[in-house]
């Protein structure tokens, strides 16, 4: 088994924490795991990209080879499109939050953010399956946009062939989140998995 997963988004969306949770879960399961992170000026509006690589035979390198991503989680809808040419392929499964985060050049009118339909079509057309989720709204209803990453992990855990289950994730967050935050995060995971079951 080797699985290449990309989690992509922008600074502040909880990308690094989500990858760490998966990484710890993988270690608990005895899997080989490598997570390559790129987060240059992420806190200042830049993209954050995690390559999460799981294997049961050998330790993978930190960068996914060309067009070899099995699954892509987009915390923001433009970012998965950005990595499509380099890492996507006809069999890639995309789990994408529909809510855009407009960069400054879009707000200022210097660049045009592609519309929803184009983003959806692009990912549908160049992959095997797209789960297009209104996850930010759900996160806000749960208590804040910061819950987004757990909703997306819940969705990811339902994917065929993904070796980490929702209960594996719950076991990890029990060790890193304070007691008071557990219920909310568990709820986010459960809602995330329901989102894709219904999709």
């Amino acid at each position, binding site marked *: 088994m080797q699985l290449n997963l990309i989690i992509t988004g*922008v600074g502040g969306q909880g990308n690094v924490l989500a*990858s*760490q949770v998966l*990484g*710890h879960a*993988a*270690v608990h399961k005895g*899997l*080989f*795991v*490598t*997570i*390559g*992170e*790129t*987060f*240059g*000026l992420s*806190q*200042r*509006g*830049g*993209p954050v990209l995690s390559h999460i690589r799981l294997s049961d035979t050998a*330790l*993978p*390198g*930190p*960068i*996914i*080879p*060309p*067009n070899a991503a099995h699954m892509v989680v987009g915390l923001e809808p*433009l970012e998965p*499109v*950005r990595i*499509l*040419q*380099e890492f*996507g*392929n*006809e069999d890639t499964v995309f789990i994408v939050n529909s809510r855009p985060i*407009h*960069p*400054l*050049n879009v*707000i*200022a*009118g*210097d*660049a045009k953010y*592609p519309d929803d339909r*184009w983003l959806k079509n*692009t990912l549908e*057309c*160049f992959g095997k399956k797209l789960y297009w989720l209104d996850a930010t709204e759900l996160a806000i209803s749960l208590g804040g*946009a910061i819950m987004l990453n757990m909703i997306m992990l819940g969705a990811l855990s339902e994917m065929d062939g993904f070796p980490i289950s929702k209960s594996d994730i719950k076991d990890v967050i029990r060790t890193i989140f304070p007691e008071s935050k557990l219920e909310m995060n568990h709820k986010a995971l459960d809602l995330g998995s329901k989102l894709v079951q219904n999709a």
Partner: protein
Amino acid sequence: MKKIFQKNGNINLLLQGNEAIARGALEGDVSFCSGYPGNPSSEIIETLADAASHLPIYTEWSINEKVAVEAAAAASFAGLRSIVCMKQCGLNVASDFLVNLTLSGTKGGMVLVTCDDPSGISSTNEEDARVFADLADTPLLEPSTPQEALEMTKWAFDLSEKINNIVLLRSVSHLSHTRSVVRIGELPENEKKARFDTRNPFHTFPVIAKHNIRHEKLKTAETIFESSSWNPYQGPEEPELLIMACGSAWCYVLEAVEIAGLTGRIGILKLGTTWPLPKKIVRETLRKCDRILFAEEVDPFIETAIKAYAADLGEEAGGKTFMGKASGHIPSTGELNPSIFLNLFEILFGLDLINKTYREKVGEHLDGVIFPREFGFCPGCPHRGSYYAIKQALAWDNRDGFISGDIGCYTMGIWPTGFNQVKSVHAMGSGLGIASGYGKLAQFGFDQPVVTVCGDSTFYHAGLPGLINAKFNKSDILLLVLDNSATAMTGFQPHPGTGSTATGEDTEPVDLEALLRSLNIGVDVADPYETEASAQKIYALLQKKGPRVLIMKRKCALVQGKQGGFPYQMSVNHDVCLGESCGCGRYCTRIFRCPGLIWDKENMKATIDQVVCVGCGMCADICPRGAIEKTGKRN
């Protein structure tokens, strides 16, 4: 206590490369840890600072990298093991001490970690700090994985004590910021006592003799390298291609060879000890094959050394074809990845390895649609206010003035959220040095006003000498210290002005204003949020001569956010905002460019993104119609 600090070994943990280096130092019985923050190195000292509350070690953020190495050297001279960590630019700062330290030698094991940043993902440059190993005659280790980073760091202390000299360990972004499963070892428990043996001084004299000793030490290191396990060869006895690889590049090579199905045709020599070259191993491996490819990041460091060694070998290594950065087979700049090697194998072995049809189709579809995300200041960032005020003042002054910039978040003044006012950026503190030069150009007809900006952390690091130079030489310099009470860019590490140390201990903060006043130069303070008043102060200062300082004092917005947030609820009064017909050309969103201000496409007017806006209130002063309103925040 976190698991990374536990005494027992033999468990698997998920560790970041930098955490693995920190654990390696602890397993290597380190006592003294120092460094200066800078991505991708910062987490090593952060981890060791955290460790200092559980284990008997000392950790500090030093004022700059040179002082960090000097402080760590003291521990070594007194017989303790020490580690000092920095990014590639930091080693430039430390190098003056380093090239002398390697003449005097060290006592307690001493390791210097440099984290290089191929592609300059979070740096002002792309630089290969390995050249300092050659320059200063220090052994150099290059781990490829977090596991190896841990083991090599630990091993480096022993090596350092065997040769009585400092050892360099080089990481890169994609090792420092890679997490993987790491098997940790046990922490030692040795009683330690620091003592300087006054019979054995540490200095560089007599220089030639010490230089010879330094070369002997390097030879000893070479022998140790040759019998170490850090340089394994894998592949057939007579490969069609031999790849010599180090660091993260080795991971990419290994994977590309497997994907291409070339494991039976390509041999890989993994070099973990890259300076001095383990010549015996290189020589034996060179015999296997006449086609050699070098895989390493940033400069052709092992490539150049091995080619030079092959020349020494004469006929024995004659007729070899060397491929790498010099021949153009490997890009001479930028981070490497598996794709680069797969593309090369396609050419060298006539294979079809990349899904070109897919890539072309996607490329055509995305052409012209995808754009990079613009970097910019956070909502509520005081730097936006400072640059707005400077821009205003320079416009009033009307002599084509500009800003000499420096290193920190405010480097982004070269881009639109700083109104493109910053016209030069180089190294820590350089903005002041350059400005002190402009300040002496009047006799050559130079009549443009120059403002130099410097953050508080950068000012302590390397800014002070430039300012004193200006005072000494009576240079016309206007310095704006952008004092946000934080080392914000690298993750809020404490510095001399913040009032706490790396380990969170209270310490009396340096009084920046008093320090500047002691130079007997004009010092004033302004609030970046008061853009109009600040602009007037800056304008008035521009009309004066000699060294002048204005402290733009306001805490980093992220710090303010954590400390209880901002006082205002912002809104745009759509009865007052005229939208496109105003004539301002969407001044607030297009020019002021705070991410909290957005354009309401339905009403064609400006509006506030209440999720993003923090309520700093700055934008209320910039709308020509006064349509942006601030009211007290509802609780």
